[in-house]
């Protein structure tokens, strides 16, 4: 039995193989995996729960990286912040929030956006035009401004940040889903399916939707990066998480006041963690886009 040639294998196998071609993308994927694992295993890999005020020792505030704790039995490898939090623990827990908000909002926005996009493509005509006008309007304004406005009206908090992000992001998915769906409806297999009498909604879900997934996946990856950055920015500006449960953005913000006394680590390390995460996501997303693109031509 002849071994399968490259072209005969399933499309996902090929996508995976092409993806792994780029060492840079693999590097990104590895970093991402580490970040996710760290976030999931947070309680086990950190010496301190930075959200539990009982575990903080105010006397240990603003210690240099590498200073051992005065009361507990561990070392503050990355130093402490103004409230005596172990920065390493705070970063790991902060990553949790970043990932949760980023992935969560992207997922919800993806579902809503795809539904709207498919609806627009399905309905066509006036409905389509109206929805796409709305999408264009939404996308033509800068996200940060819209986010500030929305948060100004609804108030602070993680939940509201997720809400804001969803409100701002669904439009990207909608536009892509609609565009791709329209392209797909012109394809012959749709004609063939319709000729077989398969109901339209089934064509939509069974045939068109799976083919819309690749570009949505690419957009999703890059949107997650944007969402995480946005959450960090909003937290930095004081509009996000509460100060007792800091995310990376808030940690950085807290460190601002100590910069001038050269106590850099409070802002520095969380930023590095944030940067690493975003770079990793962007690397993966970039490669996904390059790999998935020619597939779409088929």
């Amino acid at each position, binding site marked *: 039995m002849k071994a399968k040639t490259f072209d005969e294998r399933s499309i996902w196998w090929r996508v995976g193989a092409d993806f792994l071609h780029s060492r840079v993308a693999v590097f990104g994927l590895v970093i991402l995996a580490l970040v996710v694992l760290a976030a999931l295993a947070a309680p086990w890999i950190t010496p301190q729960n930075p959200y539990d005020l009982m575990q903080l020792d105010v006397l240990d505030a603003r210690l240099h990286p590498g200073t051992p704790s005065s009361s507990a039995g561990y070392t503050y490898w990355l130093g402490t912040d103004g409230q005596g939090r172990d920065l390493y623990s705070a970063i790991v827990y902060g990553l949790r929030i970043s990932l949760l908000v980023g992935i969560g909002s992207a997922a919800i926005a993806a579902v809503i956006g795809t539904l709207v996009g498919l609806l627009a493509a399905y309905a066509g005509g006036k409905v389509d035009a109206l929805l796409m006008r709305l999408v264009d309007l939404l996308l033509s304004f*800068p996200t940060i401004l819209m986010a500030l406005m929305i*948060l100004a*009206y609804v108030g602070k908090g993680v939940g509201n940040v997720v809400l804001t992000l969803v409100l701002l992001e669904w439009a990207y998915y909608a536009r892509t889903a609609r565009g791709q769906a329209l392209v797909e409806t012109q394809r012959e297999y749709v004609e063939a399916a319709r000729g077989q009498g398969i109901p339209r909604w089934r064509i939509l879900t069974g045939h068109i939707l799976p083919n819309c997934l690749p570009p949505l996946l690419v957009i999703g990856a890059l949107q997650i990066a944007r969402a995480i950055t946005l959450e960090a920015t909003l937290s930095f500006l004081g509009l996000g998480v509460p100060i007792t449960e800091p995310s990376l953005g808030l940690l*950085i913000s807290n460190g601002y006041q100590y910069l001038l006394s050269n106590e850099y680590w409070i802002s520095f390390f969380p930023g590095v963690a944030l*940067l690493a995460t975003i770079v990793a996501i962007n690397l993966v997303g970039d490669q996904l886009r390059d790999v998935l693109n020619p597939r779409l031509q088929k």
Partner: protein
Amino acid sequence: MTGWLLRRIAQAALVVMLMTVIVFVGLHAIGNPVDILIGDDMNQQERLEAIARLGLDQPLWRQYLAFVDGALHGNLGKSFVYQEDAIRLILQRLPATMELAVGALVLAIVIGVPLGLFAGMKPEHPASKALMAASIVGFSLPAFWVALMFIMVFSVQLGWLPASGRGETRALLGVQWSWLTWDGLQHLILPAFNLALFKISLVLRLTRAGVREVLPQDFVKFARAKGLSNARVVVVHVLRNTLIPLVTVLGLELGATIAYAVVTESIFAWPGAGKLILDSINSLDRPVVVAYLMVVVVIFVTLNLVVDLLYKLLDPRVRLEGAR
């Protein structure tokens, strides 16, 4: 051409109208407009007077018309905090924000285009690959964190540049600009660079992609076949064709930059419109928020229009088609 222009202007006006409706409805739907516009540190008598004065006891559509009327006359309420016309406050601080935004854009073009050109013409060169890697990091960087790092390195540790504030200004065309003074420039460098980082990466990648698209086209080969010098081929043929779509993107980016200046202004204590809006949101100075929204909408819509126009003018295929 004029027909198209008129249609676009009408469209733009429509969008602005739409935004006023949204803002107005937003004011009513989300909170009590009385609280939003008047503030809650007045006693009962003053409140009733204020309500009557602002027409808040009228039916909704009447209020809306009054709102629009006021907007057209440049009156969008008084700031709670500063007790001045909200619109005037914003317009006063706008030049500072424009300085930052335009400075960032100029930096992005001056640095991003040549580097992108190089990366596009010699994609296999190690420097090109390094540039592309750097550009990914560039647009992954959280701008606010970079701002802090800038301050730390350049102000605190090296002491080269000031950490905050705007420098001295000099007047030009009746407006105070800080880039006209040396002190002003020193204050401008860090925040402008900070704002520009993301853009430089974007411009670099876009230019590179554009160059790679243009380079294999026949007219480039034909230009070389004519015996033109390499410099001329690159500048007149490759760059010109790459820049046309780039210009439109950059024009829209200017709008985004003005918005993103919010964060940079906040960190560098830059007295622009962005910092104002942030402070106003935090101190619930709603009239300023509303006024800012309107100003931004107008700027955006105008920018969109200008960019569309620019594209039509620059690409002769588009321009001359429309003339028929």
